[in-house]
């Protein structure tokens, strides 16, 4: 196998009686982006926490760079995998640059201070995420979108091959959503990062991610090229909602329509006429 992340027969449950992830196998090719999509409670964030070693699988193995996750020390794993979790603002007012600099903690010298190389990496991360203009402001004074960029900058400053993100665009407006995905794509293409994103937003995932792992609530899953995985039938089955399906250029888009939606009769794939009901 050639994946930078290899998952084999992975199962996990928080309590012994139930499993939320059952017998999952997939691999991620270096330098590609993978979206993990699915309904609430399907185990998306759980899978992410398994990939970064926060949770331990019940059975099966996860290999990062051909070695099992649990064989890495905390420090060594932090050199391979960086994680951006759902936003957490600490009680004490750390500034943006202090926050990003923390990514270098394992590499500090014996007196606990950063080297020139650390500072350079941090400066690059700030530059790339366009956060350098508010580097000295405290985190609490930033907007949600700006703060998310700072946490991505911190993950970039860890200088890892793999970047894991847990719903990086929830609570962000359209412009910031697109901004975050553009930034991640740039990191993938320019820095050859492997990016795994847990997301609710299947339309953005369709536009930006090479492959998609679609987790169903009943431990079923589907993985493949994003455009193959996101079929109208799959979406309806997995999310339990009827959608209007359209197409922009190469990718489809989905608008969920409930019973009382203005256009609730418009579900299906009308613009193309191929799957009309």
């Amino acid at each position, binding site marked *: 196998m050639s994946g930078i992340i290899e998952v084999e027969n992975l199962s996990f449950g928080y309590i012994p009686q139930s499993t939320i992830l059952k017998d999952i196998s997939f691999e991620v090719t270096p330098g590609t982006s993978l979206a993990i999509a699915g309904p609430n409670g399907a185990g998306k964030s759980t899978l992410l926490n398994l990939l970064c070693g*926060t949770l331990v699988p019940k059975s099966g193995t996860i290999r990062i760079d051909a070695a099992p996750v649990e064989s890495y020390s*905390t420090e060594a794993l932090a050199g391979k995998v960086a994680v951006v979790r759902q936003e957490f603002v600490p009680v*004490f007012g*750390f500034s943006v640059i*202090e926050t990003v600099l923390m990514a270098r*903690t394992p590499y500090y010298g014996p007196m*606990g201070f950063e080297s020139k190389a650390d500072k350079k990496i941090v400066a690059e991360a700030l530059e790339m995420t366009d956060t350098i203009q508010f580097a*000295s402001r405290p985190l609490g004074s930033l907007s949600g979108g700006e703060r998310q960029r700072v946490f991505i900058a911190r993950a970039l400053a*860890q200088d890892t091959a793999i970047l894991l993100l847990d719903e990086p665009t929830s609570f962000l407006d359209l412009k910031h959503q697109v901004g975050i995905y553009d930034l991640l794509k740039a990191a993938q293409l320019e820095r050859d990062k492997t990016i795994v994103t847990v997301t609710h937003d299947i339309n953005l995932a369709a536009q930006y991610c090479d492959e998609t792992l679609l987790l169903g609530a009943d431990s079923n899953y589907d993985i493949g090229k994003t455009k193959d995985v996101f079929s109208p039938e799959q979406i309806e089955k997995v999310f339990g909602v009827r959608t209007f399906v359209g197409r922009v250029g190469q990718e489809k888009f989905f608008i969920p329509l409930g019973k009382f939606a203005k256009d609730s009769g418009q579900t299906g794939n009308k613009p193309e006429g191929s799957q009309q009901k």
Partner: protein
Amino acid sequence: MAGVVLAVVMFVCSLIGSKRISLKEAVFGEPTNPEDVRTDYDDYEIFVRVRLPRIILAAIVGAALACSGVVFQALLRNPLADPYILGISSGARLGVTIAVISGLNWTLWGRSPIAVFAFAGALGTVWLVWFVGRLTGKFHVTGLLLAGVVINAFFSAVIMFLTSIAKAEQVHATIFWLMGNMTEEDFLVLWIGAGCVVGGIMVLFYISPQLNALSFGEDDARSMGVNTARTRTMAFGVAAAITAIAVSLSGLIGFVGLVIPHGVRLVFGPDHRQLLPLSSIVGAIFLVVADTVARIIVAPAQLPVGVVTAIVGGPFFLVLLVKYSRKVSWLK
């Protein structure tokens, strides 16, 4: 820099007191000839045997309390945390109450066993809180805080029971001890205490980058490569130990451990690599000054220093709180 300020403050405060002493006499007035029975070595005696030990003691206790205040606030991610939050205070009180009420009159290396009981009570309680907190799951901050609060309340009840069956003078002795007092200690005790506290602060400084990362939560810290379990245990153990030392040397001095970290953080920012040593030094300065005030303000009587720290520290902190909202950043 701050260390120099501390040295100057300690020196100046050692010259202030209810009896004026001359510097020359104090420093050079040491009797050179033991058979010389002149009686005017008073200044030297007061300086070396009374004032100096007391000021060193105040500095040690202030540094220990402020430093462990910083650590507990970081570990519990709670700005209301202080060194006493996890039961150290009630543990020490229980230890002292038991020592006084059981009428212990034996001595340990020539000292009253009260301090030893306070130390054991403090550390024992922290261990108990830590242990109960562990049972609530993997290091749950809420579980730990709740365990601390409940054990505090339980021990307070036990203490109230013990005091209600005790004699009045015993109660008075307990209360007086606990109010927070600087008494003259002999040098051996001082050096041991100072060594432990300074060593403890150095260990905590060594792990201060990890404390920064821990402020963002366990998971984040771990994915940034911080061994959270080791950092937590080390920080917790060392901070509890130096607090217990401070408590057994001087009773329960409030306010230093809560207010000094916040004051320093407001002015200099939350980076623990800077916050931790600065808080220690500022805490030492603060307590030395407070104790000097306590010595002279109602001389020849003396106030408990805990009273001074709260009366002086409270308003001072409020002024800081209003005036600064993080204007200084050292990384710029």
